[in-house]
């Protein structure tokens, strides 16, 4: 958790009484913003009352970031008006926005990793005072005050880059509070936090609220929104589609508003009649590796989607790596379609028809600055170039087929992968592996950072591939609902061993979550 201890008192959950909530802090009326003719915000109205926790929900690309930038004065709207404290603001510049008490905590926190906590905290104040000479003593005082206002303990002399993500976030929040904030906008604040850190964050958010500071919580995680907020606004394609007190919403309703679709989730059923007679695609016997893997007996048959859950460090990632030939020196045996196979390198695994989509697809799996085509083909060039030259015609065909089959939203295969949404990027990675004729697909955290609509789409594609093509899938995930809805079996891992196996049809999300909590 980093080097801070909380000694906050937990205040009452909501201060929803007439007095606090009666006045509006900021009002946007029919705000419009276009970029080169593309409408980013379409006559959008939003009201944030003083001291409320307001959630702004929307998928990637729905206009959330644009809206934040309008409120923080970075973008000037093309139409509509903005009022703060009931007074119309003619031209909201970044400086004016800060002076009105609007503070944004960006996803990357905008901190200086090479400077100490104290300096990071005091920098804004000293800049605002237009100092030329730095007063290190006063800087420490400012920093101390900032930290005590937040009610946490942070080592002021540590370099920020040495802090955990949660620690960095605390510094960013403490810095925002320094400037007499009245509205703190948090952009996807929970993305990189663990469950416990999220609880801590929520306590702090409520504490901030109890001082009459409004918070705009920008997110696409439904459970968090429902837990923390007083009011929810959902936007889609730059328009407001829903707006109301949180008690009027539930997960399904928010999802429907965010995506405009009804996403039904039925549990996945393995077609035993069709695939039951075939040998297991992958079968391990007493697979062990040091203390990471302890006598794993896993069998995945064609058409099965097997889920693996467990805490961080339970050995679930190591299992994936071992099956992908990245942990040579394992003991025990691995059989592929009934044949014992030595998996000493990733090449061995690819030859055996195994594909692996890693956890951090952005840094491990994709060439972001290259086109979709090259990314998709990157594992297949050997097959495309029987002689010296690449068969360009065939390459194009393959790319087109994959873009169509995987429904990647792009006009052309030349589009750069970094310009795609998270969901489409994930599809590119899967497409690449399907081209290698993979028979066994290992997915590690397949939908981390992917929005609801794309998530459902990825799930649909995986299930379809398993059902129709007989692809065997091993799905490793933290997201319990994801596992319950998409797997026919789920195994729990702990300290390198399988501790329990459940049929998805006979278990529930809560049961699994409870079991995970009880693992120590």
């Amino acid at each position: 958790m980093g080097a801070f201890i909380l000694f906050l008192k937990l205040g009452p959950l909501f201060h929803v009484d007439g007095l606090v909530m009666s006045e509006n802090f900021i009002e946007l009326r029919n705000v419009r913003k276009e970029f080169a003719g593309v409408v980013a915000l379409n006559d959008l109205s939003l009201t944030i009352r003083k001291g409320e926790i307001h959630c702004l929900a929307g998928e990637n690309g729905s206009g959330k970031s644009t809206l934040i930038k309008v409120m923080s004065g970075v973008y000037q709207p093309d139409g509509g008006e903005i009022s703060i404290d009931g007074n119309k603001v003619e031209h909201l510049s970044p400086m004016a926005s800060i002076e009105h008490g609007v503070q944004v905590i960006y996803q990357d926190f905008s901190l200086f990793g090479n400077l100490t906590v104290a300096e990071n905290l005091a920098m804004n104040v000293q800049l605002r005072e237009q100092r030329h000479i730095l007063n290190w003593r006063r800087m420490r005082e400012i920093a101390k005050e900032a930290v005590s206002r937040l009610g946490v303990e942070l080592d002021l002399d540590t370099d920020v880059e040495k802090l955990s993500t949660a620690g960095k976030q605390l510094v960013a929040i403490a810095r925002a509070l320094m400037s007499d904030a009245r509205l703190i906008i948090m952009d996807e604040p929970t993305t990189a936090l663990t469950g416990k850190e999220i609880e801590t964050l929520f306590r702090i958010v409520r504490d901030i609220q109890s001082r009459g500071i409004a918070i705009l919580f920008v997110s696409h995680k439904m459970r968090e929104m429902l837990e923390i907020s007083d009011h929810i606004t959902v936007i889609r394609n730059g328009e407001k589609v829903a707006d109301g007190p949180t008690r009027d919403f539930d997960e399904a309703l928010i999802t429907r508003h965010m995506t405009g679709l009804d996403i039904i989730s039925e549990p996945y059923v393995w077609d035993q009649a069709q695939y039951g007679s075939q040998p297991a695609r992958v079968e391990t016997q007493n697979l062990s590796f040091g203390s990471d893997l302890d006598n794993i007996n896993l069998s995945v048959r064609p058409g099965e989607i097997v889920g693996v859950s467990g805490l961080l460090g339970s050995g679930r990632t190591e299992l994936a790596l071992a099956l992908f030939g990245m942990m040579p020196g394992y003991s025990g045996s691995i059989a592929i379609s009934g044949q014992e196979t030595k998996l000493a390198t990733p090449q061995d695994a690819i030859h055996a028809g195994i594909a692996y989509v890693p956890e951090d697809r952005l840094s491990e799996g994709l060439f972001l600055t290259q086109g979709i085509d090259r990314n998709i083909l990157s594992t297949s060039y050997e097959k495309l170039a029987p002689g010296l030259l690449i068969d360009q015609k065939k390459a194009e065909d393959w790319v087109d087929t994959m873009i169509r089959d995987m429904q990647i939203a792009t006009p052309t295969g030349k589009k750069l992968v970094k310009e795609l949404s998270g969901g489409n990027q994930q599809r590119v990675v899967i497409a690449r592996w399907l081209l290698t004729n993979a028979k066994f697909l290992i997915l590690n955290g397949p939908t981390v950072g992917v929005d609801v609509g794309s998530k459902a789409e990825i799930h649909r594609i995986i299930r379809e591939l398993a059902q129709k093509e007989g692809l065997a899938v091993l799905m490793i995930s933290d997201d319990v609902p994801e596992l319950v809805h998409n797997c026919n079996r789920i195994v729990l891992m702990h300290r390198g061993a399988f501790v329990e196996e459940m049929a998805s049809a006979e278990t529930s999300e809560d049961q699994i979550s409870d079991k995970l909590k009880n693992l120590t």
Partner: protein
Amino acid sequence: MTWFQKSEVVIAGILVLAMVIIGLVNPAFWSLDNMFSLLRSNVIIGIMALGVLLVMISGGIDVSFPAFAVAAMYLTVKGMIYFNYDGVLLPFVAAATMGALFGCLNAFFVYKFRMIPLIVTLGTGSMVRGFLLGVVGTSMININKMPDALIEFGKSDIVNMVKADGSTYGLTAMILVYVGLAIALHLVLRHTMIGRGVYALGGDPEAASRVGFNIRKITFFIYCVAGALAGFAGLLHSGMIWLANPRDFVGLELDVIAAVVLGGASIFGGRGSVLGTMLGVFMLVMVKNSLIIMKIDTTWQRVVVGVIIVIATAITAWRDRRANA
């Protein structure tokens, strides 16, 4: 951070160790004569290193300063001869100003076009050197033509000693100029807002502009000061060797960058200190000086400098990556 983890302490430790080893191999190393000449060799590289340090903290790199130094030096000396000027202060102001103007050129391209500093400074350095040789001239100005005031200034010593054989040696006063500039830069980096802005820029340029630093002002400050230091060092150099050679300082950028990296500055920006840089400069000069004492061929000195750059950069890169993990 405890004191023994500080880069400066580590560098100082390595430096002392190296001095002991070199002293054991060659006891002449510890002679006062050798020490004085060692310190003298620190001055020019040291002043230039201060400029490079500033650029490197901000996340950039500068390879144009030797060209700026030689241009400022040659033009100033020519001017002094032309006007028959025999002061010292004004020429140094002129050389520094010229260097600063050249530096502005770097800043303009780096800021305005968001260009990679390496490419910008490669280009501007080549341009300035080319113009100097093509337009101003290629002839050396020897001691007989050099302005006397400059030579006299370069000759000033703090202490003078007489050897047993009657020859004299001394510690050059130029070391005071170097230390003075170093202290000034240290104060700027550590205690002024613009100095902290340089670190902030090197840490995260996007965040620096979000908290309200004036990136344009800081960029111009960095490259102009680096240029001014180079111009100043160039003129000082000619006063110390009694010669103005328009082809001087070729390949010096490698030595200076090696010294700055050796001093613990990060090639990724955001880290580095004046004290560390001074230690790095001393270490580099000492190693080269020992190679000469040990009569090792100059071509091998290039190898040593190359090895130092690679190893020192690898260590700092490894350190910074670990810090970010």
